[in-house]
């Protein structure tokens, strides 16, 4: 078990280093002069003078050779220093930290909503394949997998904010739950489909296992049987958690744009627009970090829930 965890940890560190270097190379390989890109279109005309460009390059360290920049960027990133925004000169980490609460709250509410609906639905579908719950789940999943989150969000916005006037047209955390109900609902619907599908498959497999048959023979109550099957499905849920992270990150970018919610996703879209490279890179890095960490945690959780997973890999 310890060896399994250690190896997975080392693997994640390797991937993380790869992520860091990939992010750095992504910028350096870009055509065009970042200083020119950043200054043209913003600031006063004087900002485009050669002196201003040179000053900007010195300020952001763009005048040093590539390997030096890579090493210093890696060192800074290790200290959570992602440089300063081209836009307003403030540290990228602070800009991210400011927008993160809104995004995290919306995502947490969305996950809670999705789990409350999707897990029971998946369990029902698994208990009676081909039954009503199974067919409803199947239709729902087809629909939710095919409709882009932003189109879904716009349709919800049309219904609840424009027709029924229950919710504000622009979301805001300060309005309380009403202010974030729609983005949370949209993201919940995005997460609903994968959760229900994984629950149905994992619980179905657990119910079909010899252990479940033994339980039934022993006269286990249906409730107890379900709980046991859910526990046996833990590794699948851990993997699902890791797989949901990239979906929710991408969903947040789009959904925040739809509802005008000032969160981290909006920050990414705005930074891409204004070619604010340090912020774009910082956010790319943070999202990559989130996925790597989530995968590692999921691996550890599933190995703890089912030690055979760790043994199987060591053998």
């Amino acid at each position, binding site marked *: 078990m310890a060896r399994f965890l250690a190896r997975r940890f080392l*693997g994640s560190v*390797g*991937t*993380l280093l*790869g*992520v860091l270097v*990939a*992010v750095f190379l*992504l*910028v350096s*390989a*870009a*055509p*065009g002069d970042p200083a020119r890109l950043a200054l043209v279109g913003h600031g006063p005309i004087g900002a485009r003078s050669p002196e201003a460009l040179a000053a900007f390059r010195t300020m952001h360290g763009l005048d040093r050779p590539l390997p030096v920049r890579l090493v210093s960027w890696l060192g800074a990133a290790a200290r959570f220093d992602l440089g300063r925004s081209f836009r307003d000169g403030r540290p990228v980490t602070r800009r991210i930290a400011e927008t993160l609460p809104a995004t995290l709250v919306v995502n947490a509410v969305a996950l809670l909503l999705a789990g409350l609906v999707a897990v029971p639905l998946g369990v029902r579908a698994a208990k009676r394949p081909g039954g009503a719950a199974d067919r409803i789940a199947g239709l729902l999943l*087809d*629909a939710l*997998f*095919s*409709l*882009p989150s*932003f*189109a879904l969000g*716009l*349709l919800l*916005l*049309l219904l609840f904010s*424009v027709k029924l006037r229950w919710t504000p*047209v622009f979301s805001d955390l300060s309005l309380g739950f009403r202010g974030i109900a729609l983005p949370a609902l949209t993201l919940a619907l995005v997460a609903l489909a994968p959760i229900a599908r994984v629950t149905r498959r994992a619980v179905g497999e657990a119910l079909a296992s010899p252990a479940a048959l033994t339980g039934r023979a022993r006269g286990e109550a249906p409730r107890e049987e379900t709980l046991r099957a859910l526990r046996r499905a833990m590794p699948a849920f851990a993997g699902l958690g890791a797989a949901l*992270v*990239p*979906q929710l*990150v*991408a969903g947040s*970018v*789009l959904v925040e*744009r*739809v509802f005008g919610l000032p969160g981290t996703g909006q920050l*990414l*879209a705005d*930074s*891409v*627009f204004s*070619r604010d*490279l340090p912020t*774009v*890179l910082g*956010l*790319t890095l943070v*999202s*990559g970090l989130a*996925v*790597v960490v989530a*995968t590692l945690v999921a691996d550890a959780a599933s190995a703890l829930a089912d030690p055979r997973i760790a043994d199987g890999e060591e053998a």
Partner: protein
Amino acid sequence: MSRFRSVRTRLFVLGLFPLVALLAPLLARARPAEPPVLARIVTPVPFDPDATDLDARLRPPDGTHFLGTDDLGRDVLARLLHGARVSVAVGLAAATLAFLIGTLLGGAAGTFGPRADRTVLFVTGVVQAFPALVLVAAGAALVPPSAGTAALLIAFTGWPEVARLVRAEALRLSASPHVEAARAAGASRRRVLLVHILPGAVAPALATVPYVLGGAVLLEASLSFLGLGAPPPAASWGRALADARESLTSAWWCVAPPAAALFLLVLSARKLGEALSESR
């Protein structure tokens, strides 16, 4: 019921989208005031998709504009038909490219020994560590947005799944007698990969191509929605939805058509993928 589930039916349904995309310039274009009868039949939508008419902004659907007009007075139906061109072209180009990259890298990983395998797995892990949309958006910050760069960026995020499947199959084939015989007969590594392994190894990956296509269409729409896809006035469905957001309170008819079109295209791609993997 089973007839509707056949691969051929679903391929036909999906094929309607490229057909509309190809015919869009005929179906929807400006026509003279007194058109000959033939032109009236072959051009059911008499509006240029990019022609603005500021006197006819945000008109609800009626006999002239079957699906109404948008905030610049452009015909929604004409833009919907032309939007299929963007979605289908970018989606097909990205899916094809992703399939090629994935096949080559996955095949190389499965054929060229453990070191190549580890390298490809590492690169796959790094690419998959990013949410595809974030990677594509970051790329869009670095290169000027266009339909071509969108397709390239989407392909770059779409190949790992294909590579994984081809690699597994190539690893299996790599140990099979016919490949061993080819190696013993002195076939070069490239020949072993291209002639003896890939033809057998691509089959399972082919079944995922519709899913990759659906994902690519969704990504293109998302990118366009964020304003990072093909620049205006390209009639992309994602951009149409972004524009519709601005006039949402007064014009619901701008939202529903592009949303429905995207939904149907992605759904039919997924359904084809389902049928393909079931028929194997």
